[in-house]
């Protein structure tokens, strides 16, 4: 089953080059996404079998992230129906094929149990998302792609080195399968393990966009089309976070959690700091979203670094962030469609010109900045609680301070866009708000809201069990 889930999108991607009409390609994309989602829903009921000598298997952590990927992908593919209609002059063939390969690679990340395979999958996501970024074919887009590719590749190379170091550390285990590593963790050689943890954290941290390996993020998110941004900031970063959690899992079993947590804490604080510095005074909406993503990635690793309830908070925050960011990027996609720009000073009075998008922009903003009753509020609260109960008062103070500054910067730009007299009336009716460009966003907003007011017991149980992997209760 897992194998099918990986290979089917690949096959569909191949099919894209054969299919003649654009409409057929898009409907195939949507069908594949729906199939993927239905498979994932089934996995919640019936756990899939382990395949390929234990190389492929799905645990709760993987399931959680796979679900994020799947839901986001379905929403984005629905969104693309309308989005691609507006992009007449671009070839969709290659774009959709890459999207499908991207999906396949991300699925592989969540189900791979071998660390080498995990690395391969993550590198594959990098390569194919790089192709997706430059959809609009602008010089800026090329620059962003180049930076993304180079920095992430170097980062991923570090992760490869880290994986090799881990293999050295696991000399006595003679395997890089997660099951073997976890069950024999005490046999890992400590010095090599530490070395490998440092390299892995830097490597996958680059992919996640943690400071100081974050530098590609604002550029890339600033230039990527909205739907691609949604996938990258929602799904791709979660994949990278999964890789880091796997490292954490090993550290937990090998009794090196303190070592691991001290580094993630540092990374988290640095990320929050830099995000707050750059969100303040930002003039570009999408770049700001990039920094906001850095902020949230920082919060995720901060939660891991704090431990205790922080693990749960972190995983929960990952869910919230994925959908909130997805929503924001899709809004950015809409705005790009209407204004052909993402500079805040070109956009004013969205609420009056495009009321539905405007409301969604505000909802997304509230969701991202952690207003109740959106889930983000609770997860940020949980992480703050982890800091307070763990007596990390300075961390708690800085966390709150940075969140405050980020809020100041972010509200300035978002509110300026949402309110005010529209600068000029939209020239033609070509870009009216269509239902298909609003409904996917509404769905994401509703998910964000639901995650706050009501967590189903099975989801909470999965979160509990997943945080148990790292030593949380």
């Amino acid at each position, binding site marked *: 089953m897992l194998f099918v889930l990986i290979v089917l999108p690949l096959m569909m991607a191949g099919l894209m080059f054969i299919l003649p009409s654009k409409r057929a390609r898009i409907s195939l994309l949507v069908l594949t996404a729906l199939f993927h989602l239905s498979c994932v829903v089934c996995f919640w009921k019936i756990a899939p079998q382990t395949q390929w000598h234990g190389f492929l298997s799905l645990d709760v952590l993987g399931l959680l992230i796979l679900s994020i990927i799947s839901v986001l992908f379905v929403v984005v593919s629905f969104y693309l129906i309308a989005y691609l209609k507006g992009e007449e002059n671009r070839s969709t063939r290659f774009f959709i094929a890459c999207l499908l390969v991207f999906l396949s690679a991300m699925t592989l990340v969540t189900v791979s149990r*071998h660390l*080498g*395979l995990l*690395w*391969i999958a993550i*590198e*594959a996501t*990098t*390569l194919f998302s*790089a*192709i997706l970024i*430059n959809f609009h074919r602008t*010089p*800026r887009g*090329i*620059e*962003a*792609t*180049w*930076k993304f*590719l*180079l920095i992430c*590749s*170097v980062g991923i*190379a570090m992760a*490869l*080195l880290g994986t*090799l170091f881990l*293999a*050295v550390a696991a*000399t*006595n285990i*003679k*395997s*890089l399968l997660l099951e073997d590593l976890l069950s024999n963790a005490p046999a890992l*050689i400590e*010095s*090599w393990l530490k*070395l490998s943890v440092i390299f892995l954290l830097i490597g996958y941290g680059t992919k996640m966009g943690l400071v100081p390996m974050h530098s590609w993020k*604002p*550029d890339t998110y*600033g*230039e990527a089309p909205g739907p691609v941004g949604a996938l990258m900031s929602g799904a791709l970063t979660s994949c990278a976070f999964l890789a880091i959690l796997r490292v954490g899992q090993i550290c937990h079993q090998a009794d090196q959690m303190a070592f691991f947590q001290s580094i993630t804490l540092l990374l988290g604080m640095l990320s929050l700091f830099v995000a707050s510095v*750059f969100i303040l005074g*930002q003039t570009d909406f999408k*770049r700001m979203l990039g920094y906001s993503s850095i902020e949230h990635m920082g919060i995720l690793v901060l939660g891991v670094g704090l431990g205790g309830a922080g693990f749960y908070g972190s995983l929960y925050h990952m869910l919230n962030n994925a959908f909130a960011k997805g929503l924001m990027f899709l809004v950015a996609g809409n705005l790009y469609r209407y204004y052909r720009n993402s500079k805040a000073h070109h956009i004013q009075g969205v609420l009056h010109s495009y009321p539905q998008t405007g409301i969604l922009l505000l909802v997304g903003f509230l969701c991202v900045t952690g207003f109740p009753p959106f889930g983000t509020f609770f997860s940020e609260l949980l992480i703050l609680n982890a800091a307070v109960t763990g007596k990390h008062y300075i961390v708690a103070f800085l966390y709150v301070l940075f969140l405050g500054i980020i809020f100041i910067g972010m509200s300035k730009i978002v509110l300026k866009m949402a309110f005010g007299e529209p600068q000029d009336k939209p020239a033609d009716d070509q870009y009216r708000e269509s239902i298909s460009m609003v409904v996917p966003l509404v769905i994401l907003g509703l998910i964000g809201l639901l995650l706050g007011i009501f967590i189903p017991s099975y989801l909470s149980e999965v979160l509990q069990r997943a945080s148990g992997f790292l030593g949380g209760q």
Partner: protein
Amino acid sequence: MEAWLDMTLVLVVLLGLFMIGSNRLGAIIQIFGLQSVVLGTIPFLMYFSKIEIHIVIVSLVAMVLKGFLMPYFLFWAIRHVSIRREVSPLIGFGSTLFLSGFLIAGSFILSSRLIFPYPVMSDFIIPASFSTIMMGFLLLISRAKAITQVVGYLVMENGIFLFALLLLEKTPLLVEMGILLDVFVGALVMGIVVNHISDHFEHTDTSHLTVLRD
């Protein structure tokens, strides 16, 4: 056999130094190809006594991919770029050579502090791999031309490959091949992007690619 192995490893490091010292793009790519080929021979030298089909495949694929396909491809990428020289590197040639000397010394110190859990064929392997990684990194940091940076990344990968050779017996073939494939596709995509850069900007000087900033 170990003497040969040591000689080859020294050759790898020396080729890296050549790359850093060279200012012509074509030469750099050629030297990279040479280094990859030399690297491809190392598994044979290392596992001389117990050679397996698994090892042969890996080294042959690596040799072909990195030694021939990639240089060919990189040449394609720079074909219609008029500039063939690394004119104004961010850090001068002299200083980078000097730095790489330090880095080589550093990698020897680092590897002396890391005790490898089981005996290896040559105690040069780890330092050589570290220094190659470092030199790749140095190329990435100090050079302005996009193509040199791609080469730098590949040199880094070469260093990692060298380290991976130590574990060649234990890693499954699938994983090895996957890694090689990824690296290859990576270089391919980078090459395409370099091509795009030269199309759009009429240069491949990445120090000018600074529109996206705060």
